[in-house]
């Protein structure tokens, strides 16, 4: 079913060297529309480096990226954002001192003309962000509530809402449940499932097998900077995936 959908992101033979250190060696990846790809690997396997290459934060030493079949060269995260790729960072790139709505629109604030000045359109920020939160079924008191007043799970939800507010097609999530209380993990996973239904492709990095098996359609393992194994989720088991992480097939 999914295999008939368009490939929205493809990475071919990506290598990344930091001086004499090889972080990635000829790594490949494909993601289809509405698909959730789980990426696993031990610490230092190259997951985070790979995601930073995909989002344009790092320039690959060699290899190419294709968005909707077109070869693209990214020089900053701004470029990948313009192509519809958003990253939800592990440290929850939110400013706690600002309200929810202003966080969602940070860097892309709508403005209105006031004489010759471009002033912030607070009304639009509030309305658009509340409509977007409603769509994702994220419940908060008000978009004017400060982020620092929220729980960890709510903050994660806002970070995901932020990543999807501008019609992004691909969302990369780096350990989205790592810092959450158990009862909040489920809500974040539900959110990922509703993103998939909206046709958004999700790449999720996680150490938690429960997360991977709850939301992924496919899982790939990196080991020492290379593609180690990959499978449809339905054709593998937890024990096998854990084995991949440790470098055993």
């Amino acid at each position, binding site marked *: 079913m999914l295999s008939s959908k368009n490939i929205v992101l493809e990475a071919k033979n990506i290598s990344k060297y930091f001086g004499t250190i090889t972080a990635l060696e000829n790594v490949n990846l494909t993601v289809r529309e509405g698909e959730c790809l789980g990426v696993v690997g031990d610490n230092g396997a190259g997951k985070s480096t790979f995601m930073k290459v995909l989002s344009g934060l790092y320039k690959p030493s060699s290899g190419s990226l294709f968005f909707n079949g077109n070869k693209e060269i990214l020089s900053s995260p701004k470029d990948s954002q313009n192509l519809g790729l958003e990253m939800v960072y592990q440290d929850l790139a939110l*400013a*706690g001192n600002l309200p929810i709505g202003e966080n969602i629109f940070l860097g892309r604030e709508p403005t209105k003309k006031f004489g010759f000045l471009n002033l912030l359109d607070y009304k639009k920020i509030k309305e658009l962000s509340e409509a977007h939160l409603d769509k994702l079924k994220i419940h908060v008191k008000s978009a004017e509530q400060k982020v620092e007043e929220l729980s960890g799970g709510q903050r994660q939800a806002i970070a995901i809402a932020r990543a999807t507010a501008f019609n992004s097609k691909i969302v990369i999530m780096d350990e989205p449940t790592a810092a959450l209380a158990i009862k909040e993990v489920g809500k974040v996973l539900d959110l990922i499932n509703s993103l998939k239904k909206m046709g958004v492709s999700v790449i999720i990095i996680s150490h938690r097998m429960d997360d991977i098996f709850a939301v992924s359609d496919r899982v790939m393992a990196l080991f020492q900077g290379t593609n180690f194994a990959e499978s449809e989720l339905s054709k593998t088991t937890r024990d096998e995936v854990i084995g991949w992480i440790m470098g055993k097939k």
Partner: protein
Amino acid sequence: MDNPKKDQSLFLKLIPYLDRYGILILLLLMILALHIMQPDVFLSWRNVTNVFKQISWQSMLALGVFMVIVTAGIDLSVGSIMMLSLMVLAIVAKAGMPWYIVVLVPMLAGLLCGMFNGLGITLLRMPHPFIMTLGTLYIFRGAGNLISGGVPISGFTDEVRYLGHGRIDLTWLGLEESQYLPVSLVLIAIVYFIFWVFMNHTRIGKWIYAIGGNPNAARASGINVNKILVIVYSLCGLLSGIGALILAGRADSGYPNAGLNAELDAIAACIIGGASFFGGRGTVLGVFAGVMIMGILRNGLNLMDVSAFWQQVLIGAIIIIAVYIDVLRKDFGTRK
């Protein structure tokens, strides 16, 4: 009997208001207290305009330092920037340049000094702005003394002195001649309004708060953090240059000790006004209240013949109390 939970929730509900208006309440209480203690003098036209004249250049420095503090930075060099700008102004004035050049030069000098700070902090990747601006605190004052020979240069034209010394006549309103409006008061109002709009209603202002709240979030949002920091330090320098222009009007002289320790007063006003040293928090109105509290305290204590040493003790105590209130607010207002 009493329901402690309900009391607490009422207290919690009050916190945002205390957070926003607490400093203004403190200011009003001080005004009321001083009015009661000095009923004939304190709220007289002459004394009120005096207070505004006294805080005129400090209020410019405090506003500049405030924006820097919102980014979680610090600018220790504002007093020296003001002194260097003042000396440049004095030299240009003595060289017989037309007044409009003399007026522009200190602002340009201040802007360039601030830009120097900003570029140093970002390009040299200083571990903290404290280091860079501590360095330029010495460099700018030294430069000011080098170009002036370390001696005062006095005597400016009325046009140059207008912002610091000018009077707006109000006799047409039926007021007496002594009841004039100092130009510096109007200037404070205009500058503070412009920066209020800038900080609260423009994208760059919002990004300044975002950088103070979480620089990584700002970066991940595509905000060019270094560029914004250079803008902030440059504006801080520009405001210090405007401060120099006001001081030139008031003192009619460029002198080596101008703005000595003024950076500490500016920081104190910001902290009293509710700006957080950790960045991302504080308001333009709060800074104004902070400047006013320091100005009124000095004025009131002078009126009551209290020694200047007690003024120092009191200002220090107010700083600590203001920050302690902030600590309490954080305990209640934020989920960890």
